[in-house]
Structure formats: C-alpha cells, structure tokens
C-alpha cells in the first residue's frame, strides 16, 4: 500500500475550495462576523457549490427511525437544501471547510492583486532571525509543546473511538508528541509601520465606523499575513486625538466634534517619538466622513500632512465614508490642495460593498490617485 497518493487529490481539493472562497470573498469579508478575530482563528466556511449535481429530490425526505416518542414528537431540525439530520445517508451533510483568518486575508490579497507594499529603499538591516514558531514531531523535552501534543492525542483518541466521555483519559503515544522548533526568517529588509487613524466623531454613524473598522481589520490582517513583524499604531480622534490599542480601535464609541488635524498631529507625534523615520517604511491610513470642523481645520490638517507626515511616509491613504450627516468636503479640499500626488491615495466608500474596492484602490498595483 502506497501512502500519500491522496495528497495530490487533497491539494487539488484545497485549491478548488480556495478558488470558491475567493470568488465569494466579498461576502465573508463584509459580513462583519470576523471582525476582531486573531489571525490564527479558524473559520468554518460552508461550501455549497462543490457538490456534484445529480437528480435528487428537492424536498426534505422523511424516513424510518427508532426510539421512544409519541406521534407528533419532534426529533430533528432540517438543514438547508433538503438535507436531513438522518445519519443513515452518508455524504449528505453540508461541506464545511476550515480556513484561518490569515489564509482568508491572503486570498484577499491575491484576489485584489495587492502587491507587496513598495519599499522606498530605506536602510537595509541584514541578517536572519530565528523564531520558535514551528512545530515538529521530534525534539528535546524542554521544547515539548504540551497543548499540541495533547490535541493530537485527543484527536486520535476521539477518532479511533477510544475516548470515553465519562472517564476521559488521554494517553499520548509517541506519534502524538509535538515539539517547538525553529524557523529561520530573513530579517525583513525594511521595517514597516502602519498607522491607522479613525474619525470617531458624532457625524460618523455606527455604519460608518463599522466600515472603517472592517477595512482596517482586513488591511491589518492581510498585511500581517504578508509581513511578519510589522508595527502598527492606532489613533482615534474627534475634536481631540488619542492613541489606543488595537482592541479599543475596533470597539470604541466616541462622539464629539471633528478636528481632523488633531488626528494627523497625533500620528506625527507617535511616529516620531517611537520610530526613526529614516529606518522605517511608514504607511498612514485615515478614515472619516469628511465633515471637518470648518475650513480652518482643513488647512491645518493639510499643512500637517504636507510638512510633517508626507515627507517620510511611503503612502498616505484617505478613505472617505459617505454619511448623511457629513458634507464630504474634506476629500474635495484634499484633492484640490494636493492635486496628483503619488504618495496619496483616496477612496470613497458608499456602503459595505465598497470595502473591497477601497482596499484595492489603496494598495492595488499601479493605482493612480482616484477620485470618484
């Protein structure tokens, strides 16, 4: 018996599944359910379209069962598409495939054809770094990974039917043991830093904030997937700005007036306080509904951008999310002020459907500044 022939078929299946997921990517991305999850989180995605079509009954079919119960008693709940709960018909359950958030984000990158963020040729730091990020089946006891070992033993025990829920006893066999191991990473040739700025003022409604978060989340997840060790900073502002952590960024509910300049000032502060702009590739993203507190603050914001941020950033992305309260004036003024600047990319997002488009407009290949 030759072991392993199935790997080819498995890979083929995975490739097909990835294609299917990529096609429906927008759906998963904008569903909002995944917001806030960590990149290793596994998501179960139901794949309906991979079934080979046959002549089948459309309606749910009854059948024969056994057990206690009166006539009329409820014994099961129907799944979609004529699939019953019955365990006697193999292969009728809906196919669900596990994907990590990271994989989803990578698909996003491929689907939108997002390139590597362009390196502006900062100072190269050479060398390699070893990280204990990989797992292998052998190793010194000191590096034994308990969790993975236990998981393997548990899985094996469950699948071979030995697991006794009343007397749970997991005894790992040699094959179960897992040990941490090194993976050598080339130290990134350039260091990258992303600063996310979000307008959380009153005019930014829940939907607008949601959109801003979703875009930030996916960009963040995608970048995490492509680059290891990237730095990120999160800033929220209304009439004042403050730096927050990732979690707060994704959950906060401020609501005050709007002074965009404060956001940019804060960003500049944070960046220059902690990083040497000469050594870092810096990317800044800002989301707002464009309803700033008057022309004066617009001017102020532009001068901060022009004189402070733009000189050292590789890319500044401004995403304006349409809101019924916002005038959207900021984008117009920004465009007027800067004209065609290759460091600035903008996007208008009307609703959730525009999320993917925005990401593409920010990071897509050879995109010129767009204005709709």
């Amino acid at each position, binding site marked *: *018996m*030759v*072991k*392993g*022939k*199935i790997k*080819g*078929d*498995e890979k*083929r*299946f995975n490739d*097909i599944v990835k294609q299917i997921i990529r096609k429906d990517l927008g759906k998963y991305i904008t569903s909002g359910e995944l917001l806030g999850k960590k990149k290793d989180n596994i998501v179960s995605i139901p794949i309906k379209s*991979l079934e*080979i*079509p*046959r*002549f*089948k*009954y*459309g*309606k*749910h*079919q*009854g*059948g*024969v*069962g*056994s*057990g206690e*119960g*009166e*006539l*009329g*008693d*409820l*014994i*099961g*709940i*129907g799944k979609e*598409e*004529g699939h*019953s*709960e*019955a*365990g*006697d*018909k*193999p*292969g009728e*359950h809906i*196919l669900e495939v*596990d994907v990590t958030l990271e994989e989803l984000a990578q698909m996003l990158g491929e689907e939108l054809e997002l390139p590597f963020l362009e390196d502006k040729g900062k100072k190269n730091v050479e060398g390699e770094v070893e990280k204990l990020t990989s797992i292998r089946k052998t190793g010194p006891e000191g590096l034994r990974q308990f969790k993975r070992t236990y998981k393997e033993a548990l899985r*094996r025990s*469950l*699948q*071979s*039917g*030995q697991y*006794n829920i009343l007397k749970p006893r997991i005894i790992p*066999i040699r094959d179960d043991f897992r040990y941490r191991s090194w993976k050598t990473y080339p130290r990134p040739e350039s260091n990258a830093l992303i600063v996310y700025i979000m307008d959380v003022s009153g005019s930014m409604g829940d939907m607008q904030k949601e959109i801003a978060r979703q875009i930030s989340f996916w960009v963040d997840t995608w970048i995490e997937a492509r680059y290891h060790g990237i730095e990120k900073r999160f800033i929220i502002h209304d009439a004042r700005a403050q730096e927050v952590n990732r979690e707060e960024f994704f959950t906060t509910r401020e609501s005050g007036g709007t002074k965009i300049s404060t956001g940019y000032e804060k960003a500049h502060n944070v960046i220059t306080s902690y990083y040497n702009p000469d050594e870092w590739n810096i990317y800044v993203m800002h989301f707002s509904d464009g309803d700033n507190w008057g022309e004066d603050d617009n001017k102020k914001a532009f001068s901060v951008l022009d004189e402070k941020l733009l000189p050292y950033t590789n890319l500044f992305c401004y995403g304006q999310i349409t809101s019924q309260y916002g005038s959207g004036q900021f984008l117009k003024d920004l465009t007027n002020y800067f004209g065609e600047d290759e460091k600035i990319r903008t996007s208008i997002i009307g609703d959730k459907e525009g999320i993917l488009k925005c990401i593409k407009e920010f990071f897509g290949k050879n995109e010129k500044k767009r204005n709709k």
Partner: protein
Amino acid sequence: MRRKEISKELKTIIEKTKKKSKEYGLDFFETVFEIVDFEEMNELSSYVGFPSRYPHWKFGMEYTQFKKGYNYGLMKIYEMVINNNPCYAYLLESNEMVDQKLVIAHVYAHSDFFKNNTEFSKTRRNMIDEIANHGERVRKYVDLFGRETIEKFIDTCLSLEYLIDPNSIFIKRKECFHNLEEELELEEKGLEKRLPKIEVERTYMDEFINPKSILEEETKKLEEKNKKTEKFPEEPERDILFFLIENSKLKRWQADILSIIWEEIYYFAPQIKTKIMNEGWAAYWHSKIMTGSDKTNPLIDSSLAAILDDDEFINYAEHHSGITTVPRVGINQYKIGLELFRDIEDRWDRGKHGKIYEEATDISILDTWDDFIAFKNLYEEFKNLDLKEKWYEYLTFKKVVKKMSDSGDLYLKYREDIPLHWHKYLEFKEGKENRFSKVYSKIESALLENKVEEEIPEPWFEHASKYPGKIKIGKGREKIFEVRKIYNDITFIDTFLTKEFCEKHKLFVYDYEEKNNTYYISDRDFQKIKQRLLFSLTNAGQPIVEVVDANYQNRGELYLKHKLTEELDIKSQTLDIKKAEATLENIYEIWKKPVYLETVLDDDLKIFSYNGEKHKKLDLVN
C-alpha cells in the same frame, strides 16, 4: 514506504479468530491483513478501501472530511475490507487488542458475505488490479490532454453516476467498450446502434460465437428496423450511463473514462444494495465469535469457547454498543441488520415462520408459541390419551428444568429456552447423545416427582390440524446462512421485517414539516414502516430516471422521464431544480443534442429542457 509489522500477538489472534470463524461455518476468501496508522486509514477510507484511485478532487474532499472525523458518525472506523480475492483488510494500528479481535472477526464475516451473497456473484474479484488499471488509464489521459480537461470530464461523468440499473447486474456485461475503434466505424451506418457481442473470454472462440456473417445479418435486420423509425430505445432504459456510452458521439478517451465510471459503480452497486445485511451479518458474527454465546443455545451442538478474556469483556461491550448505538433519526444500519438476523435465527429455531405462524390468530397460541409447537409435534405423533400423557410430560419437564436452572444444575441463559431443551431431550430419549445427556438423564427420574397436569387449550387442535407435518425446530443457524446468501436489503426487509420486530425495536416513520423546518414522528404502523423503509432502499432512495426516446422529435434529441412512484405524493417527488438543470447540462455535454426531462414540479408535470444554451420549463401537454 515501510509496511508495519504485524506483531506476533496479533498474528496469533488472527489465526485463532480465523480458525474459530471457520468452525462456525464462515466461508471466506483468503484474507490479508495490514496494519495502518490513522492517516493511512483516512486515506484508504477516502479511496473506499483501495490503495489508490484515479486522480480526482472528490477523494481529496473525502479525505478532508475524514481527517475531521465528520464521516465517522456513529461508526468509529476500526477497519476497512474490500470485495476482492484475496480479501484485503486494514486494521488501525492504535486499536487495543480487544478492538483488534472484534475487528478481525468482523472482517471475516464481511469476507464471507462478499464471497457468498449472490448480489456479488458477478463482481470482479480482482478489482484491486482493475481499479489500479483505471487509475493508470486516467493518468495517461491527463498526460495527453491536461489535468483540467480530464477533471472537467470526470465531473460530468460523476454527475450521471447513479443513473444505472441496479437490477441489471446479472445481465451479461457488454464488452463494447474495448472495441471502441470498431464501433466508431459503425457510427457511419446511420443510428449509432451497435450489436453487443455476447460476452466471451477473448479467445479463439470469439470468431465462432459471433461469426461475421451472423453479425452482418443481425446488423441488416436492425437497419431495416431502424428504417421504420421505430422507437429507440424500444423499452425505457434505466441504465442511462451505459446507453450514453453505447450511443453518443464521444471521443475514444471520453468513452473510456465514462466506461471506467460505469464499471466502478457497478462494482460497488452490490455493496450499496446489501449494506444493512452486510453490516448486520458482520456485527452478528463479531458478537458471536467474541462472546461464544453458542454455548447458551441448547439447540446448537457445538460448544465453541469465547475468544475474549474476562477483563476484555467489559471493554468489548462498550465498543460493541458504540457500534450499535441507535441514533434518534435514521436507523443505524448495523443494528437493524444485526437484530433482524438474530430475530430470523430465533424464529427459525422455534418454528415461528410459515403459514402456521402467519395465519395464527389465537392469543393463546401466539403468546406461548413454544408450547404450541411442542404440542404440535406431539400431536403429529400421538393421539388421544397418549397425547395427553405426553403433554403432561412436557409440562413436567419444563418445571423440572426450571428447578434445575434455579439450583444451578443446568445453565439456562433465557427462560424462553426451556422449551428448546424439550426437543433436545426427545432426541436424547431416542438414543441421540448430546452435550446435555448427563443432565437429561437426571431429569428422567425427577419427572416422576413433579407431575404437572394441565389441559391443552382447545383452539390448538384445530390450528395444528390445518398444517400437516412436524414443525422443524433448531433451523435458525442454517436459515441465516441461507439468508445471507440469497437476499439483498430490499428482499431482506420485505421478507423478514415483522410487526413484532417493529414494536420490539420501537421503529417509526418520520416526516418533514415544511412550516417549522422540523422532523417529527408520523407513524408507528407496521405496514407504513415497512413501505417507507423499502422505498428508501429502492434505488438507494434516489429518483428513478429512464431514457424513453433517443430520437425525440426525429432529431436525435434525448428524452428522459422521471419515473414517479406511488409511495410518495406527487409534490414531494419534485426534484431539486438547480441540481437537475446542472445534471441536464452534463448529459448534454455527452449527448451533444438537446436533452429533455419529464418530471414533476410541485403539483404539475413539466418538461425541463436544455439545448446547450438555455434551460426551459414547459408544461406537459398530454
């Protein structure tokens, strides 16, 4: 790749179990065992027991599901056996010894089933080679035409996989497929109708059995027939797959691949048709062999000992019950098959079958059937006073045996077995020694002290007189061997499912309620249960579709008909529309001309059609 060593201990167990199985009468092909680990077992399961198959993502999909434990359901895969000679069986490396014993016994029973059940009599027993050959052929085509082309075509073929005639297994397989060149030439002669060669070994006889002259004559006859544009096919054809291979304009490699799909589904079809029986048979035997319970059946002369050690017994019980746990919805195929076999054995041990049983209505007869049978056999031999005496002797015998079992002089597993001892006792009195001889001789004297005198219920005489001849008892074991040979799931259920069985095992019919999207218990009536079960087994519960006209509208278009059944109301036989349309597209792929399907859509009869570009739905004008 290293093959895992079978430990000495395991080898001993295999030998022991093999010997025991043979002693019980199991008759199997030479069986080769292999130890595999988890990953290998998942891989084998994905390939349905074969080391490899043709390349296709569906196997990858199965594998992914197996890895997650989804496909196991209630059944924890301990083993994998294939219908082949020699039989190959795979044991999971990490099984404890008690599991291995159970599995090995289970395997031998499967092997016996494959070898002896008539549904399998025409299957290839060298399928392992054949399937490997299929894989090679497909891989060759992948090399020639590219993976994507081949994969797409296989997807198309798989869509039609179940459009076969499961009852045609015994019709000679036509050897057309391997003479494709010849047939493509025949295409030129009008309708692509080929004269199937009678299946023969490819030897010199070929020339003689299908001499050219006769073939030419037959072909001419067909041509004349065709000129009259008679209906083609004459009768509705259920084996659509085969029909397509024979009659559509496929490229040689396409016809070959379609024929591979056809061959494989026909190979697996008997397994689908006998799943309940096969699993029941295997569960019956692993239980029997493991616990050696033949000792407790008085009617069986052998006293084969158990294979299990005492402390393994508990473990075994757990695992066995894991296999036979009953799900709420749907039936556990192991359990129903197992219980039916046991029921059959019990009934044939006690003469609880045939007209004498089926036509009995009197409660006193049915409630104490064993007593009635004892009476019946005495009635055949004795009359009047003698009969009475003998009857009292029987009653007394029962009392004594019960006493002896209470005091430990006789091992009695079930109270119900007491009457069975009577028959053995009669044998003993006739001079036939058996394993109870010692005990029976003690009984003789005890009979005098324990006289019981009760009257024979009146209705018994009449009923006994209706059916001449003694009733055979103790035929249970023989009967189940016969059953495993000649029945399939449908005939098995049809013949042996009884009202009592349904009641005992609390079977019910369940239905779906659209409003709340729920399933509920709808009936416990025996006939309804049986009907529903048979329906779900017919054509594996799939709608039946046939080719009715391959020259529709005189333009060579293909007309299919969904054969509706009376078992369900019209509305619930509506097909899944999206899937039906996609399947029609796949049929079009092969037929290359418009395809029609006459079917039902809710309350109306409709014709779905596909012409390569558009799907249409027309009302059926009749």
